[in-house]
């Protein structure tokens, strides 16, 4: 019979914890959220010996158990709550060989919780190169635990770690630091009042909120907070936490003096040389800008080939379905609703994969922290910090992970502002809209031989989104009446060659969750749209064929042209036609007809629905196998004449999509992260108004 145990992977950021997690679990992993909050939860399964299965939880990176952000509080909550489903049978603290001193701080804290704890020292393959020697036996004796040397990168020591996990029952759970020496009298009173509780656990519960806002927890702990023991002022508790840190470091320094030897003469490294260039006041920014340019050009250029291919594939697939299956509502739903809807999802895959690929590459290599460093001073002026840059850059992939990435920002005001402005950055859902409109209204020309005019337009739109985000941050910083306690402490990790496996897993996981998440909405909307477009009321709809035939009887139209007129007439009098006509007065000043109006309204759920909607509307109107782009090109403006998608209406649409908050999923995430409906409501209203007036202004000036 197979048994299953819980293993928690805990460690400082940048220790290669995720690489180790990937080594242990491979593709047997899934990403979810902790119940009630949106901190990412990575779980995976690892098979051990003797039918034992390890259920491995990759906890967010943290420097200590003293919480100062939501991510960190998740770690503490998991370790404190013995009744939790995730409570570990064994904790694996991942440390990296070059920062072992700092990593041990977290280790001693977890050890004090009397959970069986293994110390896994990662990047052990570098020991020789860095001339580091470590007395493992002595270390195990002093720390009362099992120490394992591993290298996730070189795939070394993984089996030793698995063995150690298998034998978790033999681990000693004695603490290694006596935390109560920081205030013996206080701790003695605490012990007397709660004789059955673990002392260090009580201490953590008491201090949880000192550096960080409210956290949900068991009722028992809630009682503790209100009991007579809350007599220490926040200042006193902070002072004691400082003292605790000093005590722990004294222990660690004493230990490392005995077990660790580093020959510093070998310690000349590449890092400072690279930093000289990458953080240079001119070269640093230039390199950052070039990297961004490369990413955008690549996404626009490279992904266009698979995208065209997917586009045509689905168009012909739809046509084949329509021809080969017997005619009827079901075939029609399949060929005109479901298949184009599906195509509208699949077509994003190349671009999303490219974006996540580049972001993962920058994160993995350690460059992202340099970006934070470079940008902090600039961002500070707008009420943000360098840490807001990562959410804003991630926002170019998708606002949802970007909003979640704000969780390591300690200051609430800074975090709220970042959350509110992130949806301005150009997410990948805007890309299909941008790409198709740019292709229609911007000439495909090279300027100065290297820059493509269409690519440049796309770049401008990205800059516009980023500018809108920064500018609104500045405004929000001025008008939001929230006090801040901002400080900025960030580790600069060593440069690393990105691991193909890690980047690959990130790309696959993120793309999958995006496609499945957005896919459901797009699919549902496609079907609803098809129904609304295929049915209508009254004679105008049901007798469309007769009416149109009579009307054009004298004109001697070809059969094809007549069929098109009938379909068009039908659509105009279907449910969706009435809805579109209803909102037409509102969108006409922006240069749109009622069909675009429908596409805009339905894309309030998710931007990428825009193209899918047009596909549905146009293919209902004309079932011939044309790609959407060609179909859009043929549209004429019913009032002004000329092509419907011209320069003025195109720019107007681009601006509308640049600013409008059209993503239900993001609004839902913002609601969860800010724990109120107020902020997403304000965000939605403000962005929509800005979008409307920007589009209105652009069309009226350019037409």
């Amino acid at each position: 019979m197979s048994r299953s145990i819980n293993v928690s992977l805990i460690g400082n950021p940048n220790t290669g914890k995720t690489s180790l997690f990937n080594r242990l679990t491979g593709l047997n992993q899934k990403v979810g959220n902790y119940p009630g909050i949106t901190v990412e939860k990575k779980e995976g399964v690892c098979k051990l010996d003797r039918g034992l299965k390890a259920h491995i939880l990759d906890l967010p990176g943290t420097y200590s158990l003293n919480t100062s952000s939501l991510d960190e509080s998740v770690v503490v909550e998991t370790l404190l709550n013995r009744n939790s489903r995730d409570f570990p049978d064994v904790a694996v603290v991942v440390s990296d060989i070059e920062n072992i001193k700092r990593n041990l701080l977290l280790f001693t804290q977890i050890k004090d919780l009397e959970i069986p704890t293994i110390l896994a020292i990662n990047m052990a393959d570098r020991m020789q190169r860095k001339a580091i020697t470590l007395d493992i036996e002595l270390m195990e004796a002093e720390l009362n635990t099992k120490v394992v040397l591993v290298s996730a990168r070189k795939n070394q020591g993984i089996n030793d770690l698995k063995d150690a996990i298998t034998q978790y029952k033999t681990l000693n759970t004695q603490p290694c630091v006596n935390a109560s020496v920081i205030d013996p009298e206080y701790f003695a009173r605490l012990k007397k009042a709660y004789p059955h509780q673990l002392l260090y656990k009580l201490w953590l519960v008491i201090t949880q909120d000192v550096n960080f806002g409210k956290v949900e927890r068991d009722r028992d702990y809630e009682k503790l907070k209100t009991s007579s023991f809350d007599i220490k002022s926040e200042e006193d508790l902070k002072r004691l936490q400082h003292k605790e840190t000093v005590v722990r470091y004294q222990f660690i320094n004493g230990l490392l003096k005995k077990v660790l030897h580093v020959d510093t003469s070998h310690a000349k490294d590449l890092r400072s040389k690279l930093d000289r260039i990458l953080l240079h006041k001119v070269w640093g920014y230039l390199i950052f800008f070039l990297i961004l340019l490369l990413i955008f050009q690549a996404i626009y250029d490279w992904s266009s080939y698979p995208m065209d291919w997917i586009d045509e594939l689905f168009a012909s697939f739809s046509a084949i379905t329509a021809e080969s299956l017997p005619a009827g509502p079901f075939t029609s739903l399949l060929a005109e609703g479901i298949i184009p809807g599906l195509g509208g999802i699949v077509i994003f895959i190349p671009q999303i994969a490219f974006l996540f690929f580049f972001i993962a590459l920058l994160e993995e290599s350690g460059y992202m922290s340099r970006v934070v460093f470079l940008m902090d001073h600039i961002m500070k002026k707008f009420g943000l910090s360098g840490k807001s840059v990562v959410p804003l850059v991630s926002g170019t992939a998708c606002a949802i992970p970007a909003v979640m990435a704000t969780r390591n920002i300690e200051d609430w005001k800074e975090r709220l502002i970042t959350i509110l402005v992130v949806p301005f950055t150009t997410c990948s859902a805007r890309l299909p809209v941008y790409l198709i409109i740019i292709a229609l209204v911007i000439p495909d020309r090279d300027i100065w031989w290297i820059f493509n005019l269409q690519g440049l337009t796309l770049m401008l739109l990205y800059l516009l989104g980023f500018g809108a985000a920064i500018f609104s941050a500045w405004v929000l910083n001025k008008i939001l009446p929230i006090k801040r306690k901002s400080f900025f402490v960030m580790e600069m990790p060593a440069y690393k060659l990105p691991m193909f496996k890690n980047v690959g897993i990130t790309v696959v996981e993120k793309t999958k969750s995006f496609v499945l998440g957005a896919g459901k909405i797009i699919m549902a909307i496609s079907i609803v749209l098809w129904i609304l477009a295929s049915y209508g009321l009254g004679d105008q709809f049901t007798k469309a064929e007769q009416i149109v035939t009579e009307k054009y009887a004298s004109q001697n139209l070809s059969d094809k042209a007549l069929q098109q007129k009938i379909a068009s007439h039908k659509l105009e009098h279907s449910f969706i036609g009435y809805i579109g006509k209803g909102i037409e007065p509102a969108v006409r000043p922006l240069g749109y007809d009622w069909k675009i109006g429908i596409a805009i309204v339905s894309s309030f759920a998710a931007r990428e629905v825009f193209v899918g909607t047009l596909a549905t509307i146009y293919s209902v109107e004309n079932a011939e196998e044309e790609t959407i782009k060609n179909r859009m090109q043929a549209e004429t403006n019913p009032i002004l004449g000329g092509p419907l998608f011209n320069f003025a209406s195109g720019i107007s649409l681009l601006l509308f999509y640049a600013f409008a908050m059209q993503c239900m999923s993001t609004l839902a995430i913002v609601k969860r992260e800010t724990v109120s409906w107020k902020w997403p409501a304000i965000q939605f209203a403000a962005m929509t108004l800005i979008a409307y007036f920007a589009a209105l202004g652009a069309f009226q000036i350019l037409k």
Partner: protein
Amino acid sequence: MEKTIAHLKRGEIAIIKSFKETDVPLKLLEMGCLPGNLVTMMQSAPFQDPIYLNINGTHLAIRRETACKINVDPYV
């Protein structure tokens, strides 16, 4: 005036002595910024802020306003 981390020149090494105010973030201590430890000024960001330090082997970026609160002794 006492010398602080903010006064260090590029490449200069000093010993952390004390904190000017009690509200120095706990996180900084946890990263190894403790009295007695060595601090090396690696480099400043463009516009002189934030600054990039090596404290006790950890490479850290902090803002100048925080660096002003940490007194140092010269390292000989």
